[in-house]
């Protein structure tokens, strides 16, 4: 995949105006564009408080003193940076769909990463299957976008996926609180519940972007088939009937519902994306409506 195709250049300006939404104020320790939980020295007024001897006299509100004769201190929000971690599932199952699910994941990661870099957020990208296949950590500033694009363009499907096991490998978790966005189909044998718990334990605000292709949602198989798992190689012989397909579709729906239900229960936002839909729709409508970006 060439770099130019990762993101349409015409979108870049649009992306620069957007940012990854965060529900809680960020708690970073370097200056950035995000409002911090702490009061600090940004331009944004936060509150007044009575003067206590020892306070910085530069922050006294002389106008208020003129009106009331009392000394008030102006407080401003601090601006800090946000840690954004992007986890891209590079397991074999992401190699399906038209276009591939992995392509969608990579493009979404590119868009999210680019907009975060533009906002001076600290961006880390992880590609995983059963383990972390590769990562770019701690990028900050728009100047790193080329690195990011190059890394993303070089991703290719690997083996069987296991998010939980991947997160257990060293360096897989960002040490500070921040936002973690997982782009995956969540078709893991061991499930993703423990992995999400692990991320939340690391003070991450987790967003799940589930990517399922049309082939998975509503397969058009016929006849006697031996279904072979692309990751594990497990095979099942079935005679595909309309009834079985209907049952399968029901099962997919319930799987999605189950994931969404779990995410809701843990305060995790969950978004569904489909590679067959235009990227623009997914990016500017779906993610925006879901509140992942704003």
């Amino acid at each position, binding site marked *: 995949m060439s770099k130019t195709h990762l993101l349409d250049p015409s979108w870049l300006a649009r992306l620069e105006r957007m940012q990854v939404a965060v529900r809680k104020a960020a708690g970073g320790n370097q200056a950035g564009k995000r409002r911090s939980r702490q009061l600090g020295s940004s331009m944004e007024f936060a509150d007044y408080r009575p003067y206590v001897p020892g306070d910085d006299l530069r922050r006294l509100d002389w106008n208020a003193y003129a009106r009331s004769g009392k000394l008030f201190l102006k407080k401003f929000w601090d601006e800090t940076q946000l840690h954004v971690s992007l986890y891209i599932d590079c397991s*074999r*199952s*992401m*190699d*399906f769909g038209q276009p591939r*699910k992995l392509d969608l994941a990579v493009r979404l990661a590119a868009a999210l990463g680019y907009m975060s870099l533009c906002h001076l957020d600290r961006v880390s990208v992880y590609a995983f299957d059963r383990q972390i296949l590769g990562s770019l950590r701690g990028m900050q500033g728009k100047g790193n976008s080329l690195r990011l694009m190059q890394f993303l363009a070089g991703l290719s499907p690997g083996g069987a996926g296991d998010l939980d096991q991947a997160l257990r490998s060293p360096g897989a978790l960002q040490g500070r609180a921040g936002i973690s966005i997982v782009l995956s*189909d969540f*078709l893991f*044998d061991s499930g993703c519940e423990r992995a999400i718990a692990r991320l939340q334990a690391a003070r991450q605000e987790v967003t799940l972007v589930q990517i399922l*292709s049309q*082939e*998975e949602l509503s*397969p058009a*198989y*016929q*006849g*006697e*088939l*031996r*279904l*072979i*798992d*692309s*990751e*594990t190689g*497990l*095979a*099942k*012989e*079935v*005679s595909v*009937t*309309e009834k*079985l397909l209907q*049952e*399968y579709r029901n*099962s*997919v729906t319930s*799987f999605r519902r189950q994931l969404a239900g779990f995410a809701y229960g843990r305060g995790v936002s969950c978004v569904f994306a489909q590679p067959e839909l235009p990227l623009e729709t997914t990016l500017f409508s779906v993610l925006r409506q879901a509140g992942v970006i704003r």
Partner: protein
Amino acid sequence: MQWLALSNFGFALILPAILVLYLFKRKVENQLVPSILLWQRNLQGREAVRPWEKLRRNLLLLLQLLAALLLVLALMRPAVPTGGVSAPHVILVIEQSGSMLAREGEETRFARAVQTARQLVEELGSGQTVTLIEAGREPRVRIAQSGDRQAVLRELQALVPQAGRSDTAAALSLAAAISAERPGSEVIWLGDGQTEGLDPAAPAPISGSFRFLQMGAERENTALAAFAVQPAAAGAEALVRIDNKGSLPSSGSVALYDQAGHLLAADRFFAAAGESVALSFSSLPESPFYLAAIEPEHDGLPEDNKRWSVPFAAGTGKAALVSPQGNRFLHQVLQAAGKLEVEILPEISAQKDLERDLWVFDGIVPESLPEGNILLIAPNRKTDWLPYEGMRELDRLPQAVASDHPLLQYVEWADVHVARAAVLGEMAGVEPLVRAGGTDLVKAGTIAGRRVVIAAFDLHDSDLPLRPAFPIFMQNALNWLTSAQAMPIGSAVPGERLDIPLTPGATSRVLVGPDGQRQELDVQGTRFLFQVPDRIGLYQLQEELNGEVRSRYFAVHLDERESEIAPAAFHAGMQQAGREDGGKTAGEPAGSRELTAWLAALALLFVFAEWRVYQRGY
């Protein structure tokens, strides 16, 4: 439903073959899926583990099997019988047996058969010919290959039911012979399928088609199977046996009547399905015959509800012993027999009272045979009826040559010695029983309607009287010679030949039937072979002797086996029908519509459906 080509059932092997092919079919395509995780949830219990499980819910297989089954059925050429007859030549066989007298509603089976045959004949088109066979005791062709419908109807009208047995096998082979003579014949058998005596393994090969029309439906019948009356010290004793041949319990009343029709005794009976009950009655007043009648609840055949019994008449016979030399042995043994009134005559008096039941001649040969049966001992001269050829000394021991003759029953000849005996020539109707070397010692048979026993040796020239064999032999001889007179006539079934013993010396003999019809008998001798007619009832033989009319009775009953009236299927020839000629001349069988075309059309429909299913890939 008939199968005209049953042998094509072998094509049904295609069905397991299709199944086997499906089992062997490994048309499983590999399909790579992103993850089997979602499929696994649905495949619990759906996975084809064992081979036959692959066949479940396989619409294609089901349709193929159905189509194949229909084609096999079509090959077997099923046909449903239709009312009409279309064969150019129809052989109608009407069963005439006792069970055909069973009532089906208002009419008898026989009447139904005749009615059905009438309808068939009336429906015939021009150019069709009919052969009518009545399958009675002897099958008879009533009318052969006749195109004259009126004549056939007349013959049908003239058929009368018979109460006897029917010879099914003979009728079948007769029909087969006629149908073989004329190709394109159809045999239509009208009966109730009671075909005992027919070997089902080797039915007569009927070329052309065979159709059996069941005339019977009634299964219930209660029969008076046996009725016997015997005189006893305190009045007569009667025994009645009632058989329930049906499948439901039967009850009813039984009544006993005497000669004048007076009710003597009555009782109720109950017989479970297929069971017999026996009732006994005692102290009945004396009567020459008794009638027992039952009135059962369920009854299909009224003909077997009545039975007559003539009590054993233990009258004493009259015997004459003619022995010029006198014979103590003979005298003693005749006295000891008990049932004979023995008169000893020194010689044959050529006088009037020659009527004796038994004549015993010892050492004397009468010129002509007197009335009555004869025991001749030690013949010594030649007469018209006795080819005497002289005396011969014997050096061989006597040996029985016809040991199963009633005369020789229990008689041991091994230690009997005979010094000399008369040599007798061949006599028609008389067979040798005991011989010594080439000489006949004892002969027995019938001469001019009389039973004759000849002992060709003088008892004094032998040690026979000293042996245990002597009293036994004499008892046998007396039984055999006097049985005819001492026993009642007995009973018979229609179609049988009844041996009626006649009283010697009667001047006129009249047989009176149950309907009062009188038949003069003009016979000689002591026996009369009577062809028993189909009329069931009590017959009377009136004999006039010395101006006095003596009546003896005998009953004609329905054959006990005909009481089994349950209709049965009659398969003979059915399988043959389709096999003949491989359908060349048999063609479309007469009177049945083949369903082959319909089945083939249905099979085509299924094949079409299967093609659609295959196309749409269900």
